[in-house]
């Protein structure tokens, strides 16, 4: 591979690191602005001035913010995310199983959603402007337009309460067999799929339709290829860059945007973990989770960028 592409990729990665650092400052600043502080949140209704002062001292909340930021950043860089203020547990350990759960759910949602979205996109292009296209677009757009919690509750109502095919709550734990796990995550994975489907499907459709106007597609049609073969062999490979982009964006959403779905289905993932600690003002945990979400988002975006660069011959072979 040529050197410009290596340079481009290196640039992207460096940019990502800088961005992540900027995000870490934002996260830290953001958590400082929250009303109330950890000591107050921990003690709640039972706070007295003395116990508040004691706890603040104990938690080191009296130090200036920039010192706490540097401490924190140093810890993060050495893999130490600190301990949760409210329970005293090591954050890295607690996050590991949570992150694993979230990735598990995101993985299976993606396994269903991405091929489905792209296939539906291809079918929509094949029968463009016909009733099949309109039906696919209509259903996908409708499912995306509803808020996630509404879709979640609908799924629960039909599949868990009315028919009892799947459990209404998706609590997973270590002793569960793979099959039990899959059954438990069926509904949340379905909800996530429905949420991300339309974006990817519409983007696939638009990208391919764009390419379909080109002369080489006309040539392909004229040499007698079937409509699907034209799309698959000639249109799709040339439309891949924007499709990868939107797929990556949605993958990121599957990891960082699942908070609501996790809460509805009582799924022990990162989102639920974050919500629990936000209500307790457990700043170290909120910062750690925020940073991980930001890292996932930025990484997937970099991958999308790089994939787009690599997939684009004009970028691969610049004049």
């Amino acid at each position: 591979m040529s050197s410009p592409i290596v340079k481009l990729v290196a640039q992207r990665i460096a940019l990502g690191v800088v961005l992540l650092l900027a995000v870490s400052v934002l996260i830290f600043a953001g958590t400082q602005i929250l009303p109330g502080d950890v000591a107050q949140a921990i003690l709640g209704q039972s706070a007295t001035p003395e116990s508040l002062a004691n706890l603040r001292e104990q938690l080191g909340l009296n130090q200036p913010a920039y010192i706490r930021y540097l401490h924190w950043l140093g810890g993060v860089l050495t893999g130490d995310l600190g301990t949760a203020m409210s329970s005293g547990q090591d954050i890295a350990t607690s996050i590991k199983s949570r992150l694993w759960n979230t990735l598990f759910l995101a993985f299976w949602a993606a396994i269903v959603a991405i091929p489905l979205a792209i296939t539906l996109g291809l079918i929509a292009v094949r029968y463009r402007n016909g009733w099949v296209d309109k039906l696919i677009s209509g259903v996908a757009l409708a499912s995306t337009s509803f808020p996630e919690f509404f879709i979640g509750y609908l799924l629960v109502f039909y599949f868990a309460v009315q028919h009892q095919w799947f459990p209404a709550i998706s609590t997973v734990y270590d002793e569960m067999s793979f099959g039990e796990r899959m059954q438990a995550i069926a509904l949340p994975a379905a909800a996530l799929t429905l949420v991300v489907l339309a974006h990817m499907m519409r983007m696939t459709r638009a990208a391919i339709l764009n390419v379909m106007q080109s002369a080489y597609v006309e040539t392909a049609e004229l040499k007698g290829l079937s409509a699907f073969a034209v799309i698959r062999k000639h249109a799709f490979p040339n439309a891949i860059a924007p499709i990868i982009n939107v797929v990556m964006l949605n993958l990121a959403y599957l990891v960082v945007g699942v908070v609501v779905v996790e809460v509805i289905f009582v799924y022990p993932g990162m989102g639920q973990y974050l919500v629990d600690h936000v209500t307790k003002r457990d700043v170290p945990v909120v910062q750690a989770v925020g940073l991980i979400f930001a890292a996932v988002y930025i990484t997937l975006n970099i991958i999308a960028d790089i994939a787009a660069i690599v997939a684009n011959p004009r970028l691969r072979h610049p004049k």
Partner: protein
Amino acid sequence: MSNELDYLSRRVAAGKLSRRDFLGRAAALGISAPFANSLLSSAARAAGPVKGGTLKAGLVGGESTNSLDPALMMTQVPFAFGKCWGEMIVELSPEGKLENRIAEEIGSSKDAKVWTLKIRDGVEFHNGKTVTAEDVAATLERHSDEKSKSGALGYMKGIDTIKANGKEVVLTLKEANADLPYLLSDYHLIVQPNGGKDKPDAGIGAGPYKVKVNEPGVRHVGERFANYWQGDKMGHADQVEVVVINDATARTAALQGGQVNMINRVEPKIVDLIKRVPGVTIRNHSGPGHYVFIMHCNTAPFDNNDLRMALKLAIDREEMLNKVLRGYGSLGNDFPINASYPLFTEIEQRKYDPDKAKFHYKKSGHDGSVLLRTSDVAFPGAVDAAQLYQQSAAKAGIKLEIKREPGDGYWNEVWNKQPFCASYWGGRSTQDQMYSTAYLSTADWNDTRFKRPDFDKMVLAARAELDEAKRKAMYHDMAVMVRDEGGLILPMFNQFIDATGPKVAGWVEDPHQELSNGYALAKCWLEA
């Protein structure tokens, strides 16, 4: 009960007749469904508990920040799971009496200052060790230590010395307290080996279930403890499981879908819908919890008793009970005690009276509007309740201005700081505890700023009085004082509303806390 019904309900209990058939036959005999249901449950109890199976509860009130350290228990999930793995020194029975658990006998000196707990023989911890007087003493010591951050610290501070002496634990109090045994029933005071001083969150107790899985905020599993000292009364299921489900809709769906056998905190507005689901039983019971509007007695304009009285008379309690709680509660009477407390005396019910309210309002000389702060977190329906209050007060010529505060920081910035706001109290187990926590001049949580030396004296006198009849009279006088001169507007007591799924039997109604005072998992069983 007619002989036929009696026969039928025994047949159901024996599994020879379905519940549905029974209800049908009962209806034919002219018996209403709720009554027939109650017959069934008593028949099931009589038939005796069924051993085995897994009993699951889906509960709100668990977070990934929970710990097994009993000192730190605050929310519903650690509370309910604690009752599964822990054993108490003494407990409140469902009838409101004292029930001796690890303490076999509790006695006191005549002045109620020195108390002796005799420790029961043959109670065993999950680690195989026998519960000794030293363990009990160490438990009490740990909860009296500031460092433990125990939720029971407030009462434990009143204990001067704790000594283990053979099979007895001797407690000397700083001031006489006739209620000490009730205070020892606080749910934080789970007896642990060496008081939990070595490892507070080890989860080793003497309760009917051993901790098997502890994933805070996700689930907790207990496995039956074979050597539990009262195995015939509690610990019927082989395994109990608490699944944390904080979302109300998910909780109901889990009960309907059969993933859990019982849930807590059913919202009053959906109770009537849930009731219709086949197999689901609503278990509601009034407790000491109440919803309040509180005025600071020492802050203008609320430092005027006529204004306070006007505001007390301008609230339509009946309407609020029906619309906010959908009837799942009982009327409040502006003092924080109801029939779920020992030594309670009925006092004439205060009614909505716009004319009288108008009279007192005029007499107070206050002009202009009164600012009431409320929030969704103050209690469920607090914003609606404030609006109802605004309307009923308007009819008495009192202009209430409502300010809706954000839920975030409500307990830090508004409650106990602003002179007039909505709030709630979970209640306490004795009248003394309730008055000491929130009505003594010196109490941190005196959220009505009710500072009356004469009242303080009455609290202390009642606390030291061992004669029940005299104490009862004293509490009556105190209640009248709070009701007529205090800053508390108490429109309603709320109920615990739990629900159980099909096959759950052995439910015990308990007025102290939700889920049969936390014992639902330990006391219920699954019918075959």
